[in-house]
C-alpha cells in the first residue's frame, strides 16, 4: 500500500490543535527518533489516517474523521514540541 507524508495530516489535524501539527517536532515512543510530524509515513483513507515512524514503523498518531466527529490517538509519541514558527502561525490566526 502506498503511503503519504505527514503533511496530509494538516487538514484532519485542524481543530484538534491550536497550531499546525505537521510542522512540530516529535519523538517516537518506540525508537526515540526525533522528526517533524510532516516527515512521518501516513497510511490514509478510507477509514482515517495512521502516521508511522519513518524509521521503525511504530504507529505515532491515528486520526479518524467520521460523521462529523474526529478521534485522535497519540500513544506512539513520547513528546511533541511546538516551535516558534508554529506558535507564530497560531498568533497570526487570531488577528
Amino acid at each position, binding site marked *: 500500500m*502506498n*503511503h*503519504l*507524508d*505527514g*503533511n*496530509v495530516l*494538516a*487538514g484532519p489535524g*485542524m*481543530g484538534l490543535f491550536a497550531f*499546525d501539527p*505537521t*510542522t512540530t517536532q516529535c519523538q517516537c515512543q518506540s525508537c526515540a527518533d526525533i522528526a*517533524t*510530524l*510532516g*516527515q512521518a509515513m501516513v497510511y*490514509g*483513507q478510507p477509514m482515517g489516517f495512521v502516521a508511522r515512524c519513518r524509521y521503525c514503523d511504530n504507529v505515532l498518531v491515528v486520526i479518524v*474523521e467520521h460523521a462529523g466527529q474526529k478521534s485522535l490517538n497519540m500513544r506512539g509519541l513520547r513528546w511533541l514540541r511546538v516551535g516558534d*514558527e*508554529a506558535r*507564530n*502561525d497560531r498568533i*497570526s*490566526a487570531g*488577528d
Partner: protein
Amino acid sequence: MSRRTNAWLTGSLARAHPLTASARSITFAVPGWPGNDPGHHVDVRLTAPDGYQVVRSYSIASTGTGEEIELAIDRLPDGEVSPFLVDDLELGDTVELRGPLGGWFVWRPEQTQPVQLIAGGSGVVPFIAMTRAHASAGNSIPMQLLYSLRAPCDAFFRDELSQPSATAPTTWHYTRTVPPGWSRSAGRLTVKDLKSETLPPEQVPLTYICGPTGFVETVSRALISLGHAADNIRTERFGGI
C-alpha cells in the same frame, strides 16, 4: 498568509483550461480564503446526494493573498475524485475546501537556503507556486527545478516554466518518450542524473521532492546516498486514489 481557519469554505469554479490530455487547471473563487504560501495544499470535499463524502488533498498552484486558488489535477484512471474534477466539474459548480494546509512543505521567500525542486509528473504543482513566488519576489536565492515526466505531451505549464522571466531554471527529464533531437534516451532518473542535474550537497540546498510514492522514495534515497542530509529533504507523496 498563515492564517488558519477551521471551517470548510465553499469554492465555485471560476475558470478552467486543459493542461494535457488528462489534466486540467481549475481555479476556484473562494470567499473567505485567507491566502496561501507556495507549497500549501488544500483539502477538497465532495458530497454525493446520498450524503457520502470523499476528501482529497491537492497542492495549490497559485500563491498570494487573493480569494482565488488554482489547482492542477491529473485524472487518475481508477480515481474516485480526480475524473470528476477533470471531466465533469463545470463553471459555477461548487466544492468544499479546507485550507491552506501544511506548513512543512512550504517555501517562503525569506528562506536563505538554495532550493532544489524535483518533480515527478503532476508533482510539479506545488513547485509552480514556488517558482511563481520566487519570480514575483525578485528573489536572488538560487532555485532550480528538475522535472521528470513520461513524455513531452505530459508537461504542465511548459510555456510558463520556459519563459525568459522565469527566475528558476527547469531541467526536463523524460522517462518514456523524448522530444525529437533530444540528446538523452528515455529512462527513469538515476543517481548519476541526480548528481549532474541537481544542486550538490556542498551548497547545502533545501530539496523539495513531490511525486508518486515510488518516485519520492527512489529520489530521496538517491539524494541521501549522494551526501544530502535527510533533514534537508522535504517530501510530498501522493497516492493512487
